[in-house]
């Protein structure tokens, strides 16, 4: 083999008829006067012929029916499962989005409950005082029962002066 010899790649492509016409002619001309390349080309061609001589391999079985059976068997459980679901299961499936993530929903439910409890307890602290003699805005008649704890006079004690006690007591 010398530096002018075509590489295996060119000889291999020649066997496959995958060389452009010009390159093909060059390789063939070279191989005609180079025993090494001629031998290599002959080997590649003989290899190609040996592959062609390999016996045919056949399954002798109808795989069409087998594969279709397999596909149907794989699809059957899903179809049956949906067909045999009772009305309870179907109903449950409607609410599944709500019940599927109980842990994710619990903080929101807790926050909502705390808010409701807060409003309810806050409402219990409010006292409405009727004063029919003096018309006043409704907000003036509302006071917080809890605030009486902070009066200057503790509940049950006598007022030292008339104006010492809150407006409610003085009105009374």
């Amino acid at each position: 083999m010398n530096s002018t010899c075509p590489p295996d790649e060119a000889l291999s492509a020649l066997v496959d008829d995958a060389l452009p016409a010009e390159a093909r002619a060059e390789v063939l001309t070279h191989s005609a006067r180079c025993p090494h390349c001629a031998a290599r080309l002959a080997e590649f061609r003989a290899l190609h012929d040996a592959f062609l001589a390999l016996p045919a391999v056949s399954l002798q079985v109808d795989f069409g029916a087998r594969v279709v059976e397999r596909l149907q068997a794989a699809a059957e459980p899903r179809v049956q499962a949906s067909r045999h679901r009772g009305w309870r299961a179907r109903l449950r499936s409607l609410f599944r989005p709500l019940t599927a993530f109980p842990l994710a929903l619990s903080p929101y439910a807790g926050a909502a409950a705390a808010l409701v409890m807060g409003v309810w307890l806050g409402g219990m602290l409010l006292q409405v005082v009727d004063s029919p003699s003096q018309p006043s805005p409704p907000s003036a008649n509302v006071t917080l029962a809890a605030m009486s704890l902070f009066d200057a006079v503790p509940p049950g004690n006598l007022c030292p002066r008339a104006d010492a006690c809150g407006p409610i007591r003085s009105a009374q």
Partner: protein
Amino acid sequence: MSEALPALDVDDVARAQAGDMAAFAALVRRHQDRVFRFVLRMLDARDEATDLTQDVFVKAWQALPDWRPEASFSTWLLQIARNAALDQLRRRQLVQFAPLEDGMDVADAAPGPEASYAGRQQQAQLDRALRRIAAEHREILLLREVEGLAYGELARVLGIAEGTVKSRLARARAALLEHFHPHAGVTHE
């Protein structure tokens, strides 16, 4: 493959894509031997190749919506078969070069009575030599020499450039010739 087959394939694939299993069964029947032949020579185990051939068609059914008529159905199937065979070889940890037992011949290698003894010997030796070369060389040789794929199809199936196809084929042939002498039908050890 005749010119009528791809047109028949396109028609059957269109029907199969619409859910017609009978059309898909027809496709399987038409291509089962080709897929089996390739897988069998890649794996060199008949039972394994039989199971894998079925798997290839199941995978093809699942991937059928992705198939486009630009690619030949047969080439597309061989691509699925090639990937499945390589996965199987990886599972067997044989994807790296690993010579198999010499005694393991391809089950269907027995030729008809008309074949000469020398011819039978050469076929058996070619099968043996194929088992001795790397999987990437074996697959490209089988796809080119046995299945007759063009360079462009080889590039698509193997996911490589056409230039790489040319060089890999040359290397694969050189590697096979290390173990197989086609003239004398003897192996070089």
